[in-house]
C-alpha cells in the first residue's frame, strides 16, 4: 500500500442553473479514483455551493497513482429522475509523486463538459502521502521527472545524458466500439478522454521504468502523441531523452558539466527490445517501406529497405566535408571511437533535445529523415503494440544508418510524427546527425586531459559546423571550404539542422522564418493502390520541398537552417508538404551565392528581357533581404584564409528538366554577387510559377521578426511582454480548379495571409519577434485545408539589439573565445533594465547597455573609429550603472508608466485570478524559473449539436481553444505555478457537419508547469517597493501575460 491520496472538495462557483423552476442548482460531487468513489453531501439551492467536505482518502498502489487520473464529477441532485451531470474535472496527480515538484494541488478548476464546455468552477485540494517502497520488481516509476522542454531544464544540471526512451500503447478507440451506437455523445467523449488519460499515465509510467533501468532520474524532451487510427485502434506513443539531472542549488551557478562528480553508476544499457520484428514489412504491410533521408544541402538517399522509388531523382549533389586531418585529427578519431563505444551499446543513439549543455555537441552532419507508408487495415493484431513497434523500429533503424553514413554516431533534435487518412498512415522521423562529446553520455570514460585538449581544439562558435565525415570518403558529393571562423577545419556551404541554434554559434545579422509549401494532387484510391500512389509521390515532394527551402534560403542571403521541421500530410485526394525552419547566416560558413535564372530559349528577345527582369528582381530581393536581416559579413581577403582548398572541379552543373538546382563550383572568391550562383532554369510555366512564388513571400512588416526556434539569432534583449497564441484557419477549395498550381497558390496564400493577420493583430507589440512559430497542416476533408499555428510574440528593445549584434559580430571576428555562458545569461540579466525602459526608453541611457559588458572590449579593438566614441560608450555604461541603483526612483516617475502596469498586473487587489503565462519556449524573458512543478499533458474533446447557435465553426473552436487555455492555466495555478513553458498544442483535430449542425474537436496540449520570479522583482526586493502600483484605468499598451 505505498500511497494515500487525499482529496477535499471545498466549494463551487458560477455553477449553471440546472433547475429551471428555481433558477438554482442542488449540486453534489463524486470523487473517483480507480474503482473507489466518494460523494459529498448535496448542497441545496445554490449556484455557489460550499461543500467543505471531509478528506476523502484513497489507499492505492503507486502504479495506479501514476496511471489513473483523479476524476471529479459535479452533479445536480434530482429526487425523481436521474441526477444530471454538470461536468467533470480530471486531475493528473503525477506532479505530486516526486519530491521536488508540487506538494499539494489546490485551487479552482473549471468544470468541463464535452457538450457544454466550461460550466462553473470547483475548488479542490489534493495531497499524496507516499511510503517508500523497496520492492525491486516494482511496476511503478514514481519519482522520475518528466520535462517537455527539449533542453536541460534551467535549474538543473545534466550529470549524464543516457539517451533515447520510447514507448507505445494501443487500445481500442471507444468511438469505434459497438457500444458507441447506443450511448450518448457525452458518454462516448468521456470514455475517450478517460481512456487517453489512462493510457498517457501508463505510457509515462512505462517510460519511467525504462529510465530507472538506465539509472536515470528524468526524461527531458518528452514528446507524447496520439494517433487516431480509427477502426484499428487508438495509439499513444512517446519518445524522450533519459537523463540524470542534479538540481542546482542556485541557478546562477550554472556551470558547464565538466568534471562531473563521478558517480558509481555505470550505465547498464538495458534496452529491452520490444520489436520482435515479426510483422515488419512482411505480409502485414505489403507496401514497400520507403525512406528518404536528407543531408544538409541536398537530398541524398541511402535506402536500406527495399524501395522502388526512382533513386535518380534525388540529386546527388551535396556539400563537402572537412578533413579529420591536421591537429584535430587524432583526437577526433579517438573521440569518435570512445563516443561510439558509448553509443553503440544503445539501440538507438537518439536525443530528443534541441539545445545542449556547452560542449556536448561536437559536430553536426545534417538532417536525416525517414518516412514510411503503412496500411492500418493490414495490422494482424490491432490491439497489440507489436506491429506499430516494428514499424517505428524500422524507421529508427533507417535514421540510424543515415546518420552513420554522414559519419555521425548520434541523432539529435529527433522527433517522430504520423499523418493518417482513412487506412493509410505515413510515419515520419527526422533528426540531425551529429557527433557528441561522450563526456555527458557516460561517466568516467574520458580522461580529463583529453577533455582539456579537445576543448582547446574546438574553437568557439564554429566547431559544430565542421564536417564530421571524412573528406576523402564523402557520403555524397559536397562543396567544402575551410571554416571562415577558425580556418582550420572544413565546413559545408550550407547546413540544415533540426536543432536550435547553439548559443555559442557565431551568427551574422538576424534570422528569419523560412517556409516551403507544397501541394500535390493525388487520385482517390483504395488501400494498396492508394498507398502506392502516395509512396510514389513522396520523393518528389521531399525533393521539391528541399529545393524551395534552398532557394528561399539563398534569397534571404543566408547559409544555414535551424529547427527544420518537414511535415507531410496525407488527405483523400492530395498530399501537402510544409517545411518550416529558421534561416541564419553562420559566420563559419561561406557566403551563399545568388540565384541565377537561365532561360531555355535564348533567341526570343522578349523572353530574354523577361528573364533578365526576373533576374534583376531576384538580385534586388537578395540585397534587400541582406539589409533587412543585417547580414553584413566581413570582407576577407584570401591571404587570411590561406591557400584555397585544392579541390578538384569534379562536379558539373546539373540541370534537369524540372527547375532544379545545384551548386556551382567556384574558386574562393568572396566578393558578393558573383559567388557560386544557384541556377534556376526556366523552361516551362511550372518553373515560372516557382520563381514567382519565390518572390511573392512578403517579408514581415518592419519591427517584426519571426523564427521557429527557441531564440532569434541577433536578438537577445527581450523585454518581458509575451503573448502566446493559437490561430486556426480552414479554407474550402473550390473543386473546379483543382490543379497542382492552383492548389499550391491557395495553400501559399493561406499561409501568407495567416502570417499577415498575425503581424496585424500583434502590431501593438512592435518591435517584437514571433518565436517558435509552429505550423501544423491537416486535411480534415476532401476540399478542406486546416492550418494551425501556435507561437509566442515577445517584445524586445530595438536599440539594444543593434548594439549586441554588432558586438557579437566583432567577437566572432576576433575569434575571441567567447564564454558561452556569458552569452547565454547576459541578455537575461539585461531584461530587468529593459523592463523599466519599456515600452521605449525616452532617454538614451539604455542604448548601450547591451554592450556594456561584452561590447566595449570588442569595440575597443577596432570598431570605434575614435577614442571619443569609446569614452562615450564608457560614460554611458557608468551612467547606466547608477541608474540601476536608483531603480525605484525611475519607476515612480511617469516615464515608467508601462512598467507600472506590468507590476500592477499580477498582484492587483481586485482580481482573484492569478496570471499564468504560457509560452512554447523553455524560458520566460526577464525572469528566472525557480522550480519545475511537473508535466502538463491534457486531452480534451468538445462536441456540439448546436453549431449555429454557438457562432458557427469559428465561434465553436474559438471558445474551445480559450477553454483549453483556461484549463491549462487553472491546473498550473493549482500546482502553485505561474507559467507553462515548452507549451505545445500537439493535436487539434476538427471535424464538422454543418448540415447536421454538429461539430467535434479534439485537442491535446502539453508543457511544463513552472514557478518563475521576475528578475526585476529579485532586484527590487532589496530596495523599497514602489508605493503606488495600481492604476485604475489605463488606455495604453497591452499588458501581456
Amino acid at each position, binding site marked *: 500500500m505505498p500511497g494515500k491520496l487525499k482529496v477535499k472538495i471545498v466549494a463551487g462557483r458560477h455553477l449553471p442553473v440546472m433547475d429551471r423552476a428555481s433558477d438554482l442548482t442542488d449540486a453534489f460531487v463524486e470523487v473517483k479514483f480507480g474503482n473507489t468513489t466518494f460523494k459529498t453531501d448535496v448542497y441545496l439551492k445554490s449556484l455557489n455551493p460550499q461543500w467543505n467536505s471531509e478528506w476523502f482518502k484513497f489507499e492505492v498502489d503507486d502504479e495506479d497513482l501514476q496511471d489513473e487520473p483523479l476524476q471529479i464529477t459535479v452533479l445536480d441532485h434530482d429526487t425523481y429522475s436521474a441526477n444530471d451531470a454538470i461536468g467533470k474535472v480530471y486531475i493528473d496527480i503525477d506532479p505530486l509523486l516526486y519530491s521536488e515538484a508540487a506538494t499539494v494541488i489546490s485551487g479552482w478548476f473549471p468544470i468541463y463538459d464535452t457538450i457544454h464546455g466550461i460550466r462553473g468552477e470547483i475548488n479542490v485540494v489534493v495531497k499524496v502521502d507516499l511510503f517508500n517502497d523497496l520492492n525491486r520488481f516494482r511496476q511503478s516509476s514514481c519519482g522520475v521527472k518528466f520535462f517537455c522542454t527539449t533542453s536541460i531544464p534551467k535549474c538543473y544540471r545534466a550529470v549524464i545524458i543516457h539517451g533515447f526512451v520510447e514507448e507505445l500503447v494501443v487500445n481500442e478507440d471507444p468511438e469505434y466500439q459497438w457500444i458507441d451506437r447506443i450511448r450518448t455523445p457525452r458518454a462516448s467523449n468521456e470514455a475517450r478522454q478517460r481512456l487517453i488519460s489512462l493510457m498517457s499515465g501508463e505510457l509515462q509510467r512505462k517510460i519511467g521504468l525504462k529510465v530507472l533501468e538506465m539509472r536515470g532520474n528524468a526524461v527531458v524532451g518528452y514528446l507524447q502523441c496520439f494517433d487516431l487510427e480509427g477502426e484499428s485502434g487508438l495509439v499513444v506513443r512517446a519518445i524522450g531523452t533519459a537523463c540524470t539531472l542534479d538540481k542546482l542549488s542556485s541557478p546562477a551557478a550554472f556551470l558547464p558539466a565538466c568534471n562531473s562528480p563521478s558517480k558509481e553508476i555505470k550505465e547498464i544499457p538495458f534496452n529491452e527490445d520490444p520489436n520482435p520484428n515479426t510483422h515488419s514489412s512482411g505480409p502485414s504491410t505489403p507496401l514497400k517501406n520507403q525512406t528518404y533521408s536528407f543531408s544538409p544541402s541536398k537530398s541524398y538517399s541511402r535506402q536500406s529497405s527495399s524501395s522502388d522509388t526512382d533513386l535518380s531523382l534525388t540529386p546527388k549533389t551535396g556539400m563537402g566535408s572537412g578533413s579529420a586531418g591536421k591537429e584535430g585529427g587524432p583526437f577526433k578519431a579517438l573521440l569518435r571511437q570512445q563516443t561510439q563505444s558509448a553509443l553503440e551499446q544503445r539501440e538507438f543513439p537518439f536525443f530528443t533535445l534541441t539545445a545542449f549543455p556547452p560542449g556536448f555537441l561536437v559536430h553536426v552532419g545534417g538532417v536525416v529523415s525517414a518516412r514510411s507508408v503503412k496500411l492500418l487495415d493490414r495490422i494482424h493484431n490491432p490491439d497489440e503494440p507489436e506491429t506499430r513497434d516494428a514499424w517505428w523500429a524500422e524507421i529508427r533503424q533507417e535514421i540510424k544508418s543515415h546518420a552513420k553514413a554522414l559519419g555521425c554516431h548520434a541523432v539529435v533534435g529527433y522527433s517522430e510524427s504520423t499523418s493518417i487518412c482513412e487506412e493509410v498512415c505515413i510515419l515520419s522521423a527526422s533528426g540531425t546527425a551529429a557527433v557528441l562529446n561522450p563526456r555527458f553520455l557516460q561517466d568516467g570514460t574520458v580522461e580529463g586531459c583529453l577533455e582539456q585538449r579537445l576543448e582547446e581544439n574546438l574553437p568557439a562558435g564554429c566547431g559544430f559546423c565542421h564536417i564530421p565525415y571524412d573528406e576523402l570518403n564523402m557520403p555524397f558529393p559536397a562543396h567544402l571550404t575551410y571554416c571562415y571562423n577558425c580556418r582550420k577545419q572544413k565546413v559545408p556551404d550550407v547546413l540544415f539542422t533540426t536543432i536550435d541554434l547553439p548559443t555559442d554559434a557565431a551568427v551574422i545579422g538576424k534570422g528569419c522564418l523560412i517556409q516551403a509549401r507544397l501541394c500535390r494532387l493525388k487520385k482517390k484510391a483504395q488501400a494498396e493502390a492508394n498507398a502506392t500512389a502516395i509512396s510514389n509521390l513522396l520523393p518528389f515532394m521531399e525533393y521539391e520541398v528541399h529545393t524551395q527551402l534552398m532557394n528561399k534560403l539563398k534569397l534571404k542571403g543566408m547559409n544555414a537552417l535551424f529547427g527544420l521541421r518537414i511535415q507531410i500530410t496525407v488527405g483523400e485526394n492530395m498530399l501537402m508538404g510544409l517545411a518550416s525552419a529558421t534561416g541564419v547566416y553562420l559566420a563559419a560558413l561561406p557566403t551563399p551565392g545568388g540565384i541565377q535564372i537561365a532561360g531555355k530559349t535564348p533567341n526570343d528577345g522578349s523572353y530574354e528581357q523577361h528573364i533578365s527582369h526576373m533576374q534583376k528582381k531576384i538580385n534586388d530581393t537578395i540585397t534587400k533581404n541582406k539589409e533587412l536581416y543585417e547580414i553584413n559579413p566581413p570582407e576577407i581577403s584570401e591571404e587570411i584564409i590561406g591557400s584555397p582548398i585544392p579541390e578538384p572541379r569534379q562536379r558539373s552543373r546539373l540541370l534537369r528538366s524540372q527547375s532544379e538546382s545545384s551548386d556551382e563550383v567556384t574558386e574562393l572568391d568572396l566578393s558578393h554577387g558573383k559567388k557560386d550562383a544557384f541556377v534556376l532554369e526556366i523552361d516551362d510555366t511550372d518553373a515560372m510559377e516557382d520563381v514567382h512564388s519565390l518572390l511573392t513571400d512578403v517579408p514581415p512588416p518592419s519591427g517584426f521578426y519571426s523564427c521557429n526556434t527557441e531564440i532569434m539569432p541577433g536578438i537577445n534583449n527581450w523585454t518581458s511582454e509575451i503573448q502566446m497564441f493559437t490561430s486556426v484557419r480552414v479554407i474550402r477549395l473550390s473543386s473546379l480548379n483543382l490543379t497542382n498550381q492552383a492548389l499550391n497558390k491557395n495553400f501559399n496564400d493561406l499561409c501568407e495571409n495567416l502570417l499577415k*493577420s498575425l503581424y496585424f493583430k500583434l502590431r501593438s507589440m512592435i518591435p517584437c519577434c514571433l518565436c517558435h512559430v509552429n505550423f501544423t497542416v491537416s486535411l480534415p476533408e476532401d476540399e478542406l485545408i486546416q492550418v494551425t499555428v501556435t507561437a509566442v510574440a515577445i517584445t524586445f528593445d530595438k536599440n539594444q539589439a543593434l548594439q549586441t549584434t554588432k558586438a557579437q559580430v566583432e567577437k566572432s571576428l576576433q575569434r575571441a573565445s567567447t564564454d558561452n555562458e556569458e552569452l547565454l545569461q547576459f541578455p537575461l540579466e539585461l531584461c530587468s533594465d529593459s523592463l523599466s525602459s519599456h515600452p521605449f526608453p525616452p532617454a538614451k541611457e539604455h542604448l548601450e547597455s547591451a554592450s556594456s559588458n561584452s561590447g566595449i572590449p570588442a569595440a575597443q579593438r577596432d570598431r570605434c573609429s575614435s577614442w571619443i566614441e569609446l569614452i562615450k560608450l564608457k560614460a554611458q555604461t557608468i551612467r547606466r550603472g547608477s541608474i540601476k541603483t536608483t531603480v525605484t526612483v525611475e519607476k515612480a516617475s511617469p516615464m515608467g508608466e508601462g512598467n507600472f502596469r506590468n507590476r500592477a498586473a499580477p498582484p492587483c487587489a481586485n482580481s482573484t485570478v492569478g496570471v499564468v503565462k504560457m509560452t512554447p519556449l523553455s524560458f520566460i524573458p526577464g525572469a528566472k524559473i525557480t522550480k519545475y512543478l511537473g508535466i502538463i499533458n491534457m486531452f480534451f474533446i468538445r462536441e456540439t449539436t448546436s453549431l449555429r447557435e454557438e457562432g458557427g465553426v*469559428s465561434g465553436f473552436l474559438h471558445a474551445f481553444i480559450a477553454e483549453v487555455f483556461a484549463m491549462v492555466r487553472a491546473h498550473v495555478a493549482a500546482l502553485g505555478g505561474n507559467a507553462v513553458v515548452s507549451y505545445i498544442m500537439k493535436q487539434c483535430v476538427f471535424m464538422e457537419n454543418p448540415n447536421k449542425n454538429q461539430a467535434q474537436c479534439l485537442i491535446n496540449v502539453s508543457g511544463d508547469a513552472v514557478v518563475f520570479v521576475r528578475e526585476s522583482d529579485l532586484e527590487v526586493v532589496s530596495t523599497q517597493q514602489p508605493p503606488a502600483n495600481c492604476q485604475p484605468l489605463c488606455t495604453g499598451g497591452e499588458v501581456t501575460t
Partner: protein
Amino acid sequence: MTSELDIFVGNTTLIDEDVYRLWLDGYSVSDAVALRVRSGILEQTGATAAVLQSDTMDHYRTFHMLERLLHAPPKLLHQLIFQIPPSRQALLIERYYAFDEAFVREVLGKKLSKGTKKDLDDISTKTSITLKSCRRQFDNFKRVFKVVEEMRGSLVDNIQQHFLLSDRLARDYAAIVFFANNRFETGKKKLQYLSFGDFAFCAELMIQNWTLGAVDSQVDDMDMDLDKEFLQDLKELKVLVADKDLLDLHKSLVCTALRGKLGVFSEMEANFKNLSRGLVNVAAKLTHNKDVRDLFVDLVEKFVEPCRSDHWPLSDVRLFLNQYSASVHSLDGFRHQALWDRYMGTLRGCLLRLYHD
C-alpha cells in the same frame, strides 16, 4: 478558396479599443471594417482589407463571448476563460456601461419596461445612435435597476459593488435608477434645455436629502423611494403662503436684506409673492404621485421661467434663494423650520443648477 474558419486565441485576450468602440456603437462587422478602412489603418500598417475583415470578425467574436460576463462584471473578474489584465477588465466594463447623452435624455424618467424598449426604434432614428447600441444602453439601465432595487444600503455603493463601475459612472447610474423609479418627467419641451448632468445633479441632492435613506439607512430601497412621510409633512409649509401676514413678513425680511444687493430688486419685489407661492405649492403638491413626476416641469414653470423672463442673473438668483430660505428662520409664527430646511436646502441646489439657458 473561401475561409471556412478563422480564429485567433491569445493566452492574454487581445482587446482592440477601437474595435471595441465600434462594437459598442452597434456597427455590423462590414460597417466596422469600412470605418476602420476609412481611419487609414491600412496605410499605416500595410495590411489588406481581408486581414482587417478577419481581425474585426475575431474581435467581434471575442466581445460577443465577453458580453455574457459583462452583464455581471464580478464574473468577469473571477472567470478563468479569458485572461485579461485588471486594467483592461476595468476598461471593458467601464466602456460597456458607458452611455450616450442623447440616448439617456430620451429614456430618463421613463419606466424601464418592454413598452419603452419598443420605442427604441424611434429613439434610434431620432438620435442616430444604432438600434443595437440603444438596446445595450437600455438593457444596462434595466439590468442595474433590477439588481439594485429592493437592496439595502447606499444606491451608489450598491451599483459600484455589483457592477464595478467608476465612481462617476456609478453616480450617473444612481441618478438613472432614481429617475426611473420615481418616473420624473424629463421629456417635455420646456425641459429640453436641461442636460443629463443637470438632472443627475438634482437626483444626487434628492437622494441625499429626500429619500428614506436620508433618515434611516437600514431600509430596502432607501435611496430609491422618496420619504413618503416627508412628502406628507410638506403640506405644512403651505402656511407660508396661505397666511397673509406670514407671507408679508417673509417678503419684507427678504427685501430688507437684499435691498441694494440685487440687480433685479424691483422685479424680485414685484414677483416675490408669485415665486414664493410657486415654490411652496410645489412642495405641498408632492403628496400626489402625478405631481412628483411633474416636479421638474413645475420648478421650471413656477420659478425658472419667470426669473428668466425678467433676466435675473444667476448670482441674483443665488442671493435671492439664500435669503429666501434663511429668512424663514426669523418667522416666529412658523414652526416647521427643520422641514423647511430639508425641503429648501435641496430645492435651492436644484434650482440653481436648473437655472441656465
